[in-house]
């Protein structure tokens, strides 16, 4: 470790602790919560660790501050009122964090300057006024012998003496207690072997110590390290003694087991999975560069770290397996046999065992004993080859496996991984999922806001209409003034807020006119009465003009504000969608994570079948959801195994065919829209569809007749049939007849598909297509009946416009509607097949046709034939689903439905940016679930499902240009449980009625654009409105209007204001009339 490494480790550890301290601090000082002793204790622990680290790494100033911080809280543990002021603690932490920033930016562990020390002392005194802070080691334990310490220009392991020598004062009681409680703990080695005391004879693997404080750990793990005390008594008795007093090894007690938090074990599993991945990469590199002398030591370090952590976190069997693997590495390293195929093969197999053991540790709490046996057998095998290690045999002393904690080097493994200069952060997937949920909620909330904005927009439009009516009214008033009246008040339309003064001005002017006896320019022939009349009318008109002008101004301002708000809303909608998408994409990992394992597998299998094979990977940086990536590894490995075992010919056969003796297996990955295509291919003997068909007939999978009518692709697809195999004798690596069927099932489980193509002698290619993410999918907007759904693009082979002529009835269809692909349908769609049959004829496929709305039981009434078809493939079934409309695809985030709402044909729900909820259909599942005898007509497999609109009360359309009337009537009828719609005038009502006629129309007479009588006239001419009952609701009380309304077809005539019960009774009465037989 050079200085920059040390700086990085120090800063990383310290920052983590600093964050923890701040969190505890916040919790302690939260005004709404009582001070918690637990938080105080936690703060104290963390500060102690920070002190420990700082002292260990020579950051004397930080150690001073942290020690005082810990001391302050140690003092206050029993009495929260004695806590140091928040600002003091904050200042101390800020100082430490500032120092960390400096060290991090310099990437160099600089010793503190004198000014730093002075500042640290000052801060320490503010925290603990009564303590002495002349030196960092005052009253504290000095660094142990061999502790890494600063020695001027470099960090040395054995140079800690100078700092120790300055220590004069013994530890205080409180500090001893700290040490006893937090820095040393009992062992958890799982064996009763006595612990040797004193300096160990060999390496650290012989040190059966388990310590908690990381800094102490770091010391103990140093190559020439003294053992650190393991009991509180020993610490108290000889606090400055660097020799440990070790207690006997013993099995862990239940209490000790309990103290390991489950999240720590979970974290271990996550971290070890990454470590195993690193081991794979390292082993792969070793295979490519056997002369790399750093590879094995690096791998040993990782294995050692796994072993230590596994032992500590109570995975004893896994720890032993890791130890055996570590021994394998050391044996190979010491023998210098790392370049031999035997050694590499053993290491590969050892790694596979380590990987399998991790999986069993995850599922069962620890690794299987059987795997440990395999690991030991492997070690024996290695020794049998003559490759000997001078290290202890893991078989001989398995229980003596030292379950030491991590070394100082372990800390580096906790450092962010990634390219140089790139900072990565490990995040718990559950946290990520919560973040995703919050992002989805953001989208939903924004959608709600959008609706409110729309409502305000509608009200604004209403207001403008009212304003227009006011202007019109004002103009009419002016026009209706007597001819001998004085000049008219300016019409409203001509008045601007600037042209018209305040109302008081107007009154003054009017008053002036009155007092002077005439208006300027109007002569003096007006008598007082006329002037009075003039003044009152004019004043009223002017006031109204001003009010209208004010309204005008406000309306314009409101319009402007609404425009801005709408713009912001749209921007926020886009942002919310982006956030949601980005967060979803955080889950994506590159396929390169799988590649090392594929290399390992190919290498292992090729060794077993004795073929030389080269694996080439392209597009490994293609990213895919972590869950999908993990689930894909099995199928991809199976395909690789098949390729090597069955596809690649033996070397001599290849040479005879003019091929290279080294077989080639490849994997290419690339994006297609929102999907990833992964092709796994080989240059082996290829596939012969005739042979496959022959085998299928011979094994009674299909009839000879079926075989003759099959296309080459159909014949190749036979490979995916359960139990189908072309191999007479099952091999250990492939050919058991369950592989490809299983592969297809798993890929379909990922909402993906798999196809195969190949020709004799030309190799074979399996094309796997899976979505990038199960949560973010690209989906078509599909309308079926009145409902709109999202249909993932990945499930739709293609779409087609369909006319009635394209659809064959059972009598037209070849074979009279015989089952095709297991489905029977009364109607079929003839689809041209791209390839010719095995006999060389152009092929057509007649696929069953279903109406999606019928399958989902959506079509409440007979409707026109849907015009679009979605061609769906589910397994070997292809069907056409007729829909009413298909719109462009867009990316949607799929939210799973709760368990009791899950349906086989529904993948989840999504909320569109405009706030609409849509179900995301799983069309292949829908098709797969169709029964053999499902018929197009009747959809007998479905229970009738009434829709909400059908279940709710009859719909009433209220048409009135007065917003208050509309709202009042709407409210009244809604309370009576009618489904109420509203329209502002005849035109709007007509538009709505053309979409869906209401049962009852509540109609005003006077309305802009199209009045009530005009609408009635139109309705009378239109048969589709014959069933609509019309109630006139008007202020026109004359008999003439009433008669005219009835003549035009109105069923009832109500006068405003109308009592609510009359309104409701009238509507109910009309509905009863229409529903009566």
């Amino acid at each position: 470790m050079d200085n920059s490494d040390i700086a990085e480790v120090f800063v990383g550890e310290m920052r983590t602790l600093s964050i923890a301290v701040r969190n505890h601090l916040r919790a302690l000082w939260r005004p709404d919560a009582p001070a918690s002793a637990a938080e105080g204790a936690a703060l104290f622990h963390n500060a102690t660790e920070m002190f420990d680290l700082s002292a260990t790494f020579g950051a004397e100033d930080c150690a001073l501050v942290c020690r005082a911080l810990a001391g302050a809280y140690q003092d206050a543990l029993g009495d929260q009122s004695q806590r140091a002021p928040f600002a003091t603690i904050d200042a101390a932490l800020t100082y430490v964090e500032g120092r960390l920033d400096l060290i991090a930016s310099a990437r160099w562990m600089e010793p503190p300057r004198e000014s730093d020390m002075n500042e640290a002392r000052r801060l320490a005194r503010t925290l603990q006024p009564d303590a002495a802070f002349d030196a960092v080691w005052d009253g504290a334990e000095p660094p142990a012998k061999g502790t890494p310490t600063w020695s001027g220009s470099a960090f040395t392991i054995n140079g800690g003496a100078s700092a120790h020598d300055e220590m004069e004062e013994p530890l205080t009681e409180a500090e001893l207690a700290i040490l006893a409680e937090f820095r040393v703990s009992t062992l958890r080695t799982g064996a009763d072997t006595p612990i040797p005391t004193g300096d160990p004879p060999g390496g650290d693997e012989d040190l059966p110590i388990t310590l908690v404080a990381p800094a102490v750990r770091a010391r103990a793990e140093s190559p020439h390290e003294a053992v650190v005390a393991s009991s509180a008594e020993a610490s108290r008795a000889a606090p400055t003694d660097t020799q440990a007093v070790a207690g006997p090894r013993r099995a862990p007690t239940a209490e000790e087991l309990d103290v390991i938090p489950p999240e720590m074990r979970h974290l271990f599993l996550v971290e070890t999975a990454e470590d195993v991945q690193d081991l794979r990469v390292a082993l792969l590199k070793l295979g490519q560069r056997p002369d790399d002398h750093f590879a094995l030591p690096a791998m040993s370090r990782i294995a050692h770290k796994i072993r230590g952590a596994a032992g500590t976190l109570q995975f004893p069997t896994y720890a032993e397996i890791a130890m055996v693997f570590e021994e394998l590495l050391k044996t190979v390293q010491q023998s210098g046999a790392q370049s031999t195929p035997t050694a590499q093969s053993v290491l590969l197999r050892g790694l596979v065992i380590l990987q399998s053991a991790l999986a069993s540790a995850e599922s069962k709490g620890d690794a299987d004993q059987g795997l440990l046996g395999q690991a030991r057998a492997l070690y024996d095998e290695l020794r049998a080859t003559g490759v000997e290690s001078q290290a202890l045999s893991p078989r001989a002393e398995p229980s003596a496996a030292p379950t030491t904690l991590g070394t100082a080097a372990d800390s580096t493994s906790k450092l962010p991984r990634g390219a140089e200069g790139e900072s990565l952060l490990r995040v718990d997937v559950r946290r990520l999922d919560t973040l995703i949920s919050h992002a989805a909620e953001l989208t939903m909330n924004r959608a709600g806001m959008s609706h409110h904005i729309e409502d305000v927009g509608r009200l604004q439009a209403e207001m403008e209409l009212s304003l227009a009516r006011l202007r019109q009214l004002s103009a009419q008033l002016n026009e209706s003034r007597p001819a001998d009246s004085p000049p008219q008040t300016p019409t409203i339309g001509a008045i601007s807020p600037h042209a018209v003064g305040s109302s008081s001005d107007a009154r003054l002017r009017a008053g002036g006119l009155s007092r002077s006896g005439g208006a300027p320019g109007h002569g003096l022939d007006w008598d007082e009465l006329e002037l009075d009349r003039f003044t009152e009318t004019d004043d009223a008109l002017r006031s109204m003009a001003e009010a209208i002008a004010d309204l005008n101004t406000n309306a314009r301002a409101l319009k402007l504000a609404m425009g801005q708000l709408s713009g912001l809303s749209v921007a926020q909608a886009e942002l919310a969608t982006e956030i949601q998408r980005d967060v979803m994409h955080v889950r994506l990992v590159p396929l390169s994570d799988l590649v090392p394992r594929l290399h390992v597998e190919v290498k292992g299998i090729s060794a077993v079948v004795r073929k030389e094979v080269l694996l080439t990977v392209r597009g490994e940086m293609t990213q895919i959801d972590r869950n999908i990536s993990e689930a894909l590894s099995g199928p991809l490995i199976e395909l690789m195994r098949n390729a090597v075992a069955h596809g690649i010919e033996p070397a001599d056969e290849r040479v005879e065919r003019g091929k290279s003796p080294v077989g080639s297996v490849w994997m290419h990955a690339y994006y297609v829209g929102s999907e990833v295509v992964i092709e796994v291919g080989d240059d082996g003997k290829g596939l012969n569809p005739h042979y496959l068909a022959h085998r299928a007939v011979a094994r009674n999978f299909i009839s000879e007749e079926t075989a003759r009518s099959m296309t080459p692709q159909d014949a190749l697809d036979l490979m995916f049939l359960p139990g189908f195999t072309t191999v007479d004798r099952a091999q250990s690596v492939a050919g058991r007849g369950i592989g490809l069927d299983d592969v297809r099932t798993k890929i379909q489980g990922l909402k993906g598909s798999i196809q195969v193509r190949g020709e004799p002698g030309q190799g074979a290619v399996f094309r796997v297509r899976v979505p990038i993410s199960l949560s973010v999918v690209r989906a078509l907007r599909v309308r079926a009946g009145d409902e709109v759904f999202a249909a993932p693009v990945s499930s739709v082979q293609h779409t087609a416009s369909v006319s009635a002529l394209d659809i064959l009835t059972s009598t037209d269809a070849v074979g009279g509607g015989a089952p095709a692909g297991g489905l029977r349908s009364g109607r079929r769609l003839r689809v041209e097949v791209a390839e010719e049959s095995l006999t060389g004829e152009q092929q057509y496929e007649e696929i069953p046709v279903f109406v999606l709305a019928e399958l989902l039981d959506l079509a409440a009434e007979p409707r026109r034939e849907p015009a679009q078809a979605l061609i769906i493939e589910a397994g070997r079934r292809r069907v056409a689903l007729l829909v009413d409309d298909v719109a462009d695809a867009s990316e949607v985030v799929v939210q799973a439905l709760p368990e009791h709402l899950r349906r086989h044909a529904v993948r989840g729900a999504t909320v569109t940016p405009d706030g609409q909820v849509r179900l995301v259909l799983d069309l292949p599942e829908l098709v797969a679930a169709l029964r053999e005898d499902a018929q197009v007509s009747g959809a007998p497999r479905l229970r009738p499902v009434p829709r909400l609109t059908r279940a709710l009360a009859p719909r009433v359309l209220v048409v009135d240009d007065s917003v208050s009337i509309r709202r009042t009537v709407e409210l009244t009828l809604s309370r009576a449980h009618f489904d109420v719609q509203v329209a502002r005038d005849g035109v709007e009502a007509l538009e709505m009625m053309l979409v869906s006629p209401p049962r009852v129309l509540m109609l005003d007479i006077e309305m802009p654009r199209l009045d009530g009588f005009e609408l009635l006239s139109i309705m009378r001419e239109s048969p589709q409105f014959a069933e609509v009952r019309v109630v006139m609701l008007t202020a026109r009380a004359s008999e003439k209007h009433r008669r005219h309304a009835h003549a035009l077809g109105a069923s009832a005539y109500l006068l405003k204001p109308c009592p609510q019960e009359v309104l409701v009774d009238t509507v109910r009465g009309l509905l009863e009339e229409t529903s009566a037989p």
Partner: protein
Amino acid sequence: MPDVPREPTTVAPDAEGVAGLQLEAHVERYAEQSGDEYLLFLCAGIPCAAPLRALREVLLSTPRPVFLPFSPRWMLGVFPLRMEMIGLVDPVPLLLGDLGGETPFWPADTPAPSFPTVVSSQYGARTTPTLIVGAPGQTLAWLVQAVGDIARVTEDELVTSPEQIAAARLPFVSRYVAGIYAPPQGGQQHVALDADALMADLVEGLREKDGENG
């Protein structure tokens, strides 16, 4: 019988904050009282009561749901509520024991009872109230006609004798009836529902069964 204050504690529907404060005041006010709190509401035209502990939330305005295929007819669709997709159900068919033919959504011939403190009345049916019931992951929204007061119901006020319940000739399936809330001084009686039993049947009825397509 204890002297339970009978003044209605109307929850202000127009301001959640105000409603929250009033609810809080209500809780404090009744904290010392015995008995359980019940939400009074109208369902199938019949005054009902459900224990507050069984309810998560009351939505005064029900979002429009989207159709969920392969569901029983009393399942009206799903809608998003915060981070969860909620199923909106009409409990009336189950309550009435009519799971077969076409039951009217609202029984047309059911007389509307007196319901003096109907919070949702001023919003009308477009904001049909909904009771959110059940634990997260198993939540359903019950569509009801109107939501009223919260009442503290003592043991004395809750008639649970099977004979008395049978004598009341309630239209509901007996399995869903926990008792009859008969307030003192002859106030409006309410059917106290066994929310857990109803919820269990609703959830079970919604599950897609193996071998059954809908």
